[in-house]
């Protein structure tokens, strides 16, 4: 264990580190500038439990409806039924892929053993062999277990994807149950799927390069399989995720350098929830909140949808009068300013602008004068 790992472990405290999924890895890129989030994620801290303990449980996006989960499961089972017959037909017909005879290899368990490590070793052995013998291609690997270095930890990714090799290239197939209607799908769902697929691609690429094989053997065109229109019929589409792969790599590299961020923190700082033997958290709330505040956050309203801790950070930003709580348009409009009170003081002329605030101050004073005239100076 490195010094960084030890430091991250002490930050997290006595709870077990959370394991990553492609979903949580994709979420790492949601707000790359946020140190608080980067540290929490690298340490594997349970942000949801922390947020609840300090009084800000996550409200939106906290859980998925059982109806959505069931539908996802049914759709995936249907696509993969009978050795992926439906899937192979789609790949041939919709995408025109020249698949020869296809065999199907399910890696969900290895001789009854379902531990992540064993499954990963098996996946790795099979995929590396396939990479070295591209002529023997034609296997669909279902439930491969991949591994990715995230911060100080090795994260196992258990994708609901199939990987296969054709003409010397591995492809990642992602099965999602949101519908594509008249060729269009919900933008947010597609963006999330693309980012998750990027996590699988990065993991595959790393596996190959670790064995001195070329990363270019992994296609960055992901095959997205979704229901079409209002029927459960599946359709397949290519999405180019080069950009998402680059974004994810940048964020992972940043987390690998997490030591730099750690050095700036006071020693002894911890987000330990101090669970007692019954699992009740005993850490004093105020103390935990102060510990969280030591690490700078970069709150933006979008966090409410992507980060478990957002309620806490929003409250902190509000207390500080930060402009960011009013959304990106307001923040962009006011350029160099960062607090509500500064902006209002410049608008009313109470505060003298610094050199770089001169332009925005003039604009604000002008708008304020118009607004005062409208309100008759009273409202």
């Amino acid at each position, binding site marked *: 264990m490195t010094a960084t790992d030890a430091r991250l472990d002490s930050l997290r405290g006595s709870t077990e580190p959370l394991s990553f999924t492609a979903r949580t890895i994709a979420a790492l890129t949601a707000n790359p500038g946020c140190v608080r989030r980067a540290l929490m994620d690298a340490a594997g801290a349970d942000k949801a439990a922390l947020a609840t303990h300090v009084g800000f449980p996550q409200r939106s996006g906290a859980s998925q409806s059982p109806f959505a989960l069931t*539908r996802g499961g049914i759709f995936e089972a249907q696509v993969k039924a009978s050795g992926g017959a439906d899937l192979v037909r789609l790949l041939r017909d919709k995408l025109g892929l020249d698949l020869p005879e296809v065999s199907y290899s399910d890696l969900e368990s290895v001789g009854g053993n379902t531990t992540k490590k064993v499954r990963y070793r098996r996946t790795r052995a099979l995929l590396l062999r396939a990479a070295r013998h591209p002529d023997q291609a034609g296997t669909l690997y279902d439930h491969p277990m991949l591994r990715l270095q995230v911060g100080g930890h090795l994260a196992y990714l258990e994708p609901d994807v199939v990987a296969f090799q054709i003409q010397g290239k591995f492809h990642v197939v992602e099965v999602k149950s949101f519908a594509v209607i008249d060729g269009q799908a919900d933008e947010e769902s597609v963006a999330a799927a693309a980012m998750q697929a990027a996590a699988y691609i990065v993991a595959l690429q790393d596996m190959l390069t670790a064995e001195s094989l070329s990363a270019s053997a992994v296609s960055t065109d992901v095959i997205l399989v979704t229901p079409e229109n209002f029927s459960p019929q599946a359709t397949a589409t290519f999405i180019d995720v080069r950009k998402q792969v680059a974004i994810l790599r940048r964020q992972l590299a940043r987390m690998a350098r997490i030591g730099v961020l750690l050095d700036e923190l006071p020693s002894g700082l911890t987000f330990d929830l101090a669970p007692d033997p019954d699992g009740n958290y005993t850490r004093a709330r105020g103390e935990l909140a102060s510990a969280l505040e030591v690490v700078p956050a970069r709150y933006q309203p979008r966090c409410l949808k992507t980060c478990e801790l957002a309620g806490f950070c929003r409250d902190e930003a509000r207390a500080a009068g930060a402009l960011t709580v009013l959304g990106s348009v307001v923040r962009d409009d006011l350029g160099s300013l960062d607090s*509500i009170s500064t902006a209002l003081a410049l608008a009313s002329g109470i505060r003298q602008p610094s050199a770089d605030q001169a332009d925005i101050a003039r604009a*604000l004073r002008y708008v304020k004068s118009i607004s005062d005239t409208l309100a008759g100076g009273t409202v």
Partner: protein
Amino acid sequence: MTLLTTLARLEAAVSGRARPLSRVRHCRLAAQPLVIIPLTLAGDPATPVAAMTGTSRYGQQLLVVPQPHSRDLRLGFLVGLARIVLGYIADRQNRTEVLPATKKSEERRRFADAPQVIVPNQAARDYLGLLGRSTRFLPTDGPYAVDPAVPSLGKWLTFLADSADHTGAALLADLTSLLAEHWASGQSPLEDASLAAQLAWIDPPPGMTGLQAALATEDPLRCPPAGPATDPGFDQAILEPLVRRYNRAAQAGKRAGVDRATAEITAALKGQLEPTWDAVWRAISLLRALPETALAGRRWSADKDSFTRFSSYLADGGLPQPRRDHAATAAARLDRLERAQAAYDTERALEDPFVLAELRTSGEAFAGEVVSAEPSRTIITAAGRAVLRPRFTVRTGDPVRLEPGRVLICPAHHRQRVQIADLTRTATDADVVLEVVQGMGTPGRPTPGAVPAIGELVSFTPDPGFFAQRDFPPPEQIPWTHGGPLVRRAVGPGEETPS
């Protein structure tokens, strides 16, 4: 959003209460709108679980699908919704009015009223469009025949959803957008997407700030989301177990059990919908309290026209709207939408000092003092006739971004048009030379007051008539780049077959 709105947001955040962005209402609110609050099943597209609907505060009806995956129950729901929507529309087709002939058009008849469907938020608006898409192609004959009311509902919902893209149209209105047009809250636009949270800032309960009230609405147990997505926690703890109970009773053929489960599901969904129902009517009465502008009535007339046109299209056996627009139709539609948006902004400026102020801050309008005037200036036309073309100069501190040649209107003189003849800027001000081109009278009989006096404070904003309709080639002359001559295509078989 302009800096004026931004400033209002800052002030709202500090004062704990939303700031008015306008004191008049630019959108017609029908005396009897049809409110629809749809709820949908998570995961499946266009699979409704419930809808609360009605035309008055205490006249709500609740439609529920106890097992959303059952095609029969879903169709039963859609037939029920169709009865309500089609009945509401038919009531609007009872009376007609006659528009006398004008120079440009012959005498014609149109419906004296139009439907207005109100939904809580933009997502609900989009959802009605999606329901329209999923039902308008359903077959009314063959093995999967449905009640003809269902595809008819689909065509109307599609019509309403399409109209909502047209700025200023009031046939389908969503309340979060309407409220945001009239008030700036002290939270982000993302949080404004929640009707309850936005209302909390505009009209917080006594003793609470907008922020406190808005935060309280975030607890789904106290304030269920306005939909169409249900709260996942509710799905997990209540709805899903009840649906399973329904399934068990249905599989065992126990009529009483099915009825009991249906009653429980109905009660649970009613509990999820009622707070939003109340919020919708609160929002409607807040908006009704604002005086409606004259041009809102004119835009409503345009709505009556399009309602009448679509009604006769359907009466002539109109086919369901295509899944995708033909290239030429799309180009014309886009052009129409852009012009509607631009005209809407400038029209509002004529009636609303707040909007005028917004346009001033963005340089599209200006106000200032008259510094010189030539009230009796004449020019000689090409035909050799002397015409009156008075000029005057306005000095303004506003950041004018209008080019010479633009036609403007002064909100105080609706019938007059002026054109920018010249524009010179100094370090802090701009001098705009304006030439009166309409409403000035003749050299012998100049219109009194056509030219403002020196020292008078005046404001000018672009002429909405500038955004008049553009001519597109007739259907048979559409170039191949846009799909070639337009041929009406029948909906082919297999467009949509139920699973």
